[in-house]
Each structure stands twice: as structure tokens, then as C-alpha cells.
């Protein structure tokens, strides 16, 4: 199995100074869901956005490479990079409510890429959009195509966004907290859908989340992050085992569980944070 995405020593830095991602390496194989886990400020979203080339203006990549099927995305000319986006690399965003343009019909948002990048005719693109909506299990797909986003529920909108992400059969999908804004019953449906689609199309998925429960249910491989550093990396079974890194186990201990109500209230011990912060400081001293 060859890696679709191969990130080596990625470093993301604020333009006014200060590292956000500190030499992170990870690789995602075809057909694999790779979880990127951590608390806020761990750098998981920065890594995802660096892959997609949509880092905020105040932030830049200051080192490393992002290998994608043999190319280094960081070295590609903007035009060639844009040609990969959508067709080879796609995104499932966090918030289905803001991920769709309120002023455009679903059909327009589902077909624009198919028409403008893949050169499909209006009819072809519409037929494909219809098929995709059916594939993400939307009833009355034909009617949904003619609706505006506000006429659909949150779960429906996330299905539409998943359909858009898969529409050009990309080899890599970045899913950025795709179920955080959803109700728990809808979350389960959407997680199931992402896994089904990913398995069916053999897509590699970089799955960003803060929720260890979600990780346990959908990921094959996991990278645990803290202050932009890799705390631990490995298969899901290792990460979930008692042999995992202290920080990972502390995160598990802080996660409330309805099946173990008595032993859930354990904040991450201060010394674990301290050690990881000290490591980040050492990194910054060595790499100003």
C-alpha cells in the first residue's frame, strides 16, 4: 500500500512569530481513515488547512513537505495546485449550516465543479449530482437539487456536503470535525455514511476531531497532537489500549462516559500539560 498523503516535518508558523505546528509527520494510505486528535490549539486544524492550501493570512508553512501522490503540494505552482483541489483533494467542513452558500441552489453548488473542472455538460452534471444525492441516501433527490440550503435540515446539508466532497472521486478527503455541529443521532448516520462512502471509493481520509469516541468508531490510524507536536501515533487499537501515551490516557480519563459515570471526572493532570509545553519550548529554542 502506498501513501496517498505523506506529510514530513511540517512546520506552520505565525507570520509575527511562534510555531503552531512543530515538525509533524504522518501518512495516510488509500482506503484508510487517519484521525488527527487533540484539544483546541493542538494544531490539528492547521495541518488540515495546510494540506488544502487554505491557511489563514496570518499563518504560513515554514518548513517540511506535504507529499501527495508523489508531488509536494507546497512546491506546486498555484495553478497546478488548484487543479488538484476538488478533483483529487476535497473537504468535508465542520458546520453544515455555513458550508453551503445560502444564495445558491443545491444543484448549482453540486454541479459547478463537475461542469467547470471536469467539463461535463449541464445535463451530465445534473444527472451525476442526482446519483450522488441518492448515494448519500437523500430521499427525493430531484427535489432537493432545486432547493436552497435553508430549506434542508442540518443532517441533510451535511449529506449534501459529503456528496460534493465525493463528487469528483478524489483520492484524499479532509474531514474537519464533520459531525461536531450535529445532533447525536444524526452524527451516527453521518459517520456511518462517511465510512461507507470512503470504503466504497477507496478514499484516504484525514479525519480531524477532538472526540475520542468518534475516533474509536471511524479511524484506522490515529495521530494524537498537543501544542503542534505529535504525542503519539499508531493504529486505533494501540491508541485505545492501556499502553498508550500518558496524555492520550489522560484525555480518555477526562472524557465523560455514560457507562462509567463514577470515574469520569479526571481533568488532564497538570504535570502532563507541563511536560508537553516544556517540549514545545525546547523545540522553539532549537528552531527560532
Amino acid at each position, binding site marked *: 500500500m502506498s501513501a496517498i498523503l505523506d506529510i514530513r516535518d511540517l512546520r506552520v508558523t505565525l507570520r509575527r512569530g511562534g510555531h503552531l505546528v512543530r515538525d509533524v509527520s504522518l501518512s495516510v494510505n488509500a482506503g484508510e481513515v487517519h484521525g488527527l486528535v487533540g*484539544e483546541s490549539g493542538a494544531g490539528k486544524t492547521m495541518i488540515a488547512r495546510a494540506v488544502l492550501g487554505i491557511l489563514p493570512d496570518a499563518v504560513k508553512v515554514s518548513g517540511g513537505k506535504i507529499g501527495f501522490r508523489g508531488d509536494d503540494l507546497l512546491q506546486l505552482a498555484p495553478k497546478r495546485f488548484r487543479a488538484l483541489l476538488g478533483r483529487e483533494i476535497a473537504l468535508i467542513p465542520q458546520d453544515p449550516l455555513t458550508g453551503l452558500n445560502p444564495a445558491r441552489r443545491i444543484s448549482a453548488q453540486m454541479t459547478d465543479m463537475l461542469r467547470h473542472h471536469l467539463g461535463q455538460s449541464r445535463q451530465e452534471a445534473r444527472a451525476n449530482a442526482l446519483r450522488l444525492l441518492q448515494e448519500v441516501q437523500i430521499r427525493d433527490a430531484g427535489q432537493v437539487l432545486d432547493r436552497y440550503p435553508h430549506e434542508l435540515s*442540518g443532517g441533510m446539508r451535511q449529506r449534501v456536503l459529503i456528496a460534493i466532497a465525493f463528487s469528483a472521486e478524489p483520492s484524499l478527503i479532509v474531514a474537519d470535525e464533520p459531525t461536531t455541529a450535529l445532533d447525536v443521532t444524526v452524527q451516527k448516520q453521518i459517520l456511518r455514511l462517511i465510512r461507507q462512502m470512503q470504503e466504497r471509493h477507496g478514499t484516504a481520509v484525514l479525519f480531524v476531531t477532538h*472526540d475520542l469516541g468518534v475516533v474509536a468508531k471511524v479511524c484506522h490510524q490515529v495521530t494524537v497532537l498537543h501544542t503542534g507536536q505529535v504525542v503519539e501515533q499508531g493504529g486505533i*487499537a494501540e491508541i485505545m489500549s492501556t499502553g498508550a501515551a500518558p496524555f492520550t490516557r489522560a484525555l480518555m480519563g477526562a*472524557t465523560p462516559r*455514560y457507562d462509567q459515570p463514577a470515574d469520569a471526572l479526571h481533568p488532564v493532570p497538570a504535570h502532563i500539560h507541563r511536560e508537553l509545553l516544556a517540549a514545545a519550548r525546547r523545540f522553539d529554542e532549537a528552531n527560532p
Partner: protein
Amino acid sequence: MTGPLLQVRDLTLSLPDRSRGKLFAKPPMTDILRGISLDLPRGESLGIVGESGSGKTSLGRTLVRLYQPTSGQILFDGADITTLDEGAMRTHRKHMQMIFQDPQSSLNPRRRVGEIVAQPVLALGVERDRRAALKRADLALDRAGLGHAFARRYPHELSGGQRQRVGIARAIATEPRLIVADEIVSGLDVSTQAQILALLNDLKQDMGLSLIFISHDLSVVRVLADRVMVMLGGRVVEEGTSADVFQGPRHAYTRQLIDAVPLPVIEPGWLDTKPATEGTRMVDIKGQTVLVTGTSRGIGRVFVDALLAAGAARVYAATRDGSGSHSDARVVAVKLDVTNSADISTAAQTCADTTVLINNAGINFNSKLLETDQVDAAAAEITTNYLGTLNMCRAFAPVIEGNGGGAIVNMASILARVNLPLMGSLCASKAAVYSMTQGIRAELASKGIAVFAVLPGAVDTDMTKDFPPPKAAPADIVAEVLAGIQAGEADIYAGDMAKGVSGGLAADRPAVIAEMAGYV
């Protein structure tokens, strides 16, 4: 003082729905909360869980009288606060505080933390002197684990967890007896969340607080709450101690919710497991095309209006003679006698977009089984109630399946489960309906059609005029039926009598049969 701190009876909240308003006309009302009752003992915590739109946030705000309930009663510390105006509420406000979901927007960015925390202390007259109020604020900040050094900071200098602690400090500064906390840990990292939860638990112990904790996160509620209330569509679907509800959820919807929580445990196949709802899934009436039989009177007529209110896209109102008109353009009158197979096949063609079928038509001759001249009545009851319903199911199952799935709802009766000799032949026909419903439920489960049996108690209609009271109002029964469909309850016991009998049958079947036998 003894007795519960908060007692709520039959609370409803309706708000105008401006999205459906017409020119110059008052917008129609939408029910946000429907008949909520609860008791909150002193020093206890009640968790309210539900998904978006369940009404949990509205309930929290109504309990502390940020909203004016439409009907019902709220007793706080023995005092009726249901209709108090803002002036009269002031004396109670210091005893009931609310912590909001978004600490960012509920803290005035131009005020120092100390002033923010002292603000309710002054405004509610706990202290008249500013310095004394600031002193209380310092104390509250200490208790909230921030330390009074934070009093001089501004909200934007704080992290999310710290801001939420300010929210907590502000709430406890007036030494309240009740705190309503609405989604206060959502959006926080788990390690921060664990700290906030531990803090709330400590405060509850130390200050003897009663706590209402509203959250979409079942695990968080389980950890913090002594009792849990599960809400759906403005109603309480299940209530009990946390241990009971989480270990043995009685309601299908509760099971579904719990089942959907991803625990941090590797569990191959978890994603593909369907919630354990006995094969019946929830059906949202909104946007459905519903065919209701027997709409000329009684429950059927009430169904039509209730379905419209629930957002049905179209309602085929079937009557034996096809008569009847309705002011709402979504209602289409259909001529359909369920004993006439030609009528049924015509209806299956003209109402080809049906997605939900409600088999409501039925007759009752109030006849005992062995009275000499009554066998015709028994035959008629079987023909209409049983065969009519069966034929409708047979004709419409393919229609609904062709429309991508939906639901079939068969109106049986609680008398399907125990015979009331006074109307023995009716009971037999209803038992047949109930039995048949279970059969088609199994057959249709794989075809995307949820099948519901409704077992109401006595309803106050023409048909039951000989039946002894108490009888439920048709509107209440219909509301319970629709709630049951939306919650995915396979067998819907509608009305107190039905629930009573059902419970009695489970506990002491012979006693119920004996009691019914008494009505000869």
C-alpha cells in the same frame, strides 16, 4: 422549608411562528413546550437531554421565567411564579440564576470581571453597597476556582474555560437555591470540561444547590445529574433516576439516543448497528403526505388538523361518501369506504404520493358476544375494523414503498389486549387488528415502512357514548399518537387509561381481566 424546590405542572409554551404569517393576520402559534411536569427536590440535580428543537433550552428559560409560559404552573419554593411580572420576579431572581451556553456573548466585554460578577448582586438588591457587592464577587470568583485576582481582568483576556467560570461565579454570587445551566460545557475541551463539571458538583454539595443541567451530551448529563429527563418535540418522553434511564431506558427514543453516543471503545460494527427500537424507526410528520381514513367525525377529524399543524405536506381526508371540505388547501377530500375494494384500489391510484397511512376508520356496535341477534354486528365489526384495515395495508404498502418508505399507523384499542365483555365483539376485532399489525410490521420492516399500533383507552367520541368514564379528549389522544410516531414507539398506548391498563396487565394480568369482566 420542605417539599421540592421547583414544582412544574403541565407547562406549555406557544410562540407565534412568523415564518408562516399572512398579511395583516396574526401569525399561527407553534407549540414549543407541551405539558411538561417535573419536581426538583432541594439539593438535587436534574439533567435535561434532547436534540436540537426538542425544547430543552426553551424549558430552561421558561423555568426561570425569562419566557412567559402559555399555560401551566411553576411553583418555586412554594410560591407561584407562573405569571409574576418582572417587578414581582425580582424577589425570586436572586434565588434562581442561569448560566448560559456561550460565555463569550453573555459577558459584557467592556466590564471588568469583578463588575460583571457583582452586577446581579447589586441589581437584585442582595447588597446595596458597591464595595460590599464587589467583595461578594471576589468570594464567588474564589469559589468558582478562578481566584479574586481575576476580578480586575476583562473577559477577552480569559480562556473559554475561565470565561465559563466567570459565568458560574456570577450565578452563585447571589447565593441562589437553583441554577439552570444551559449547555455550559459544550465547546470546551474535555480536560476543561471535566474541571467545570467537577466544580459544579462541588458547588452543588457545598452550597446545597439545586441544579438543572441542560445538555445534548448524554455522557455529561449522566456524570452530573441525579435524575434525567429526555425531551423530544417539546414533550418529556422519559424521566427517571440517571442510573435507571441509562441502564434500562424504557422509551425507544431514549434507547436510540444512548445507542448513538460514540463511546471511546473499539466496537467493530457499531456504525452499522441500527438503534434497538424493535424495528420501528421514528417518522417525522413534517413534509409527509398522509392518508387518514374515517375523517368524518371523532378522532379522524382531529387527526387532520393535528397533521396539518405538524407540518404534513398534504392530507388525504377519506370519508365514506367523499364529502367534507377544509379551509386548508393541503387537505384533499377522498371518497373511500374501507369495506369496498373498488374504493381502495381507486384511492391507491389517486393518492399515489402517500407516504403515511393512518387506518382510523372503524365501527362499534357495543354488542356482547353471545346475545342472540348480534352476530351480524360482529361480522360488520370484523369486516370494517379488521378486513378494512388489512386491505388498506395491502393496497398501500407498495405505494409507500414506492415513495421511498414511510409509515402505516393502525388504530387498534387497549381493548385489543383485554376483553371488555360490554362490547365483546368490538374487542375481538381490535385484537385481530393488533395481531395483524404485528405481522405486517415484521413483513414491512425491511421495506422502509414503519408500522405502528395505536392502543388508546376510552376516547370521548360518539362511538363510545356507552362506555364508562373517564374518557380522554380526542385531541390529547391524537397528540400522543403523533408524538409516538415521531419518537418511533412501535405500540403507542395513548391516554392515561391505556397506560394504566397496559401497566396493570404487566403487573397483575388476572386482576385486570377480572376488573374488565365486571363490566357486563
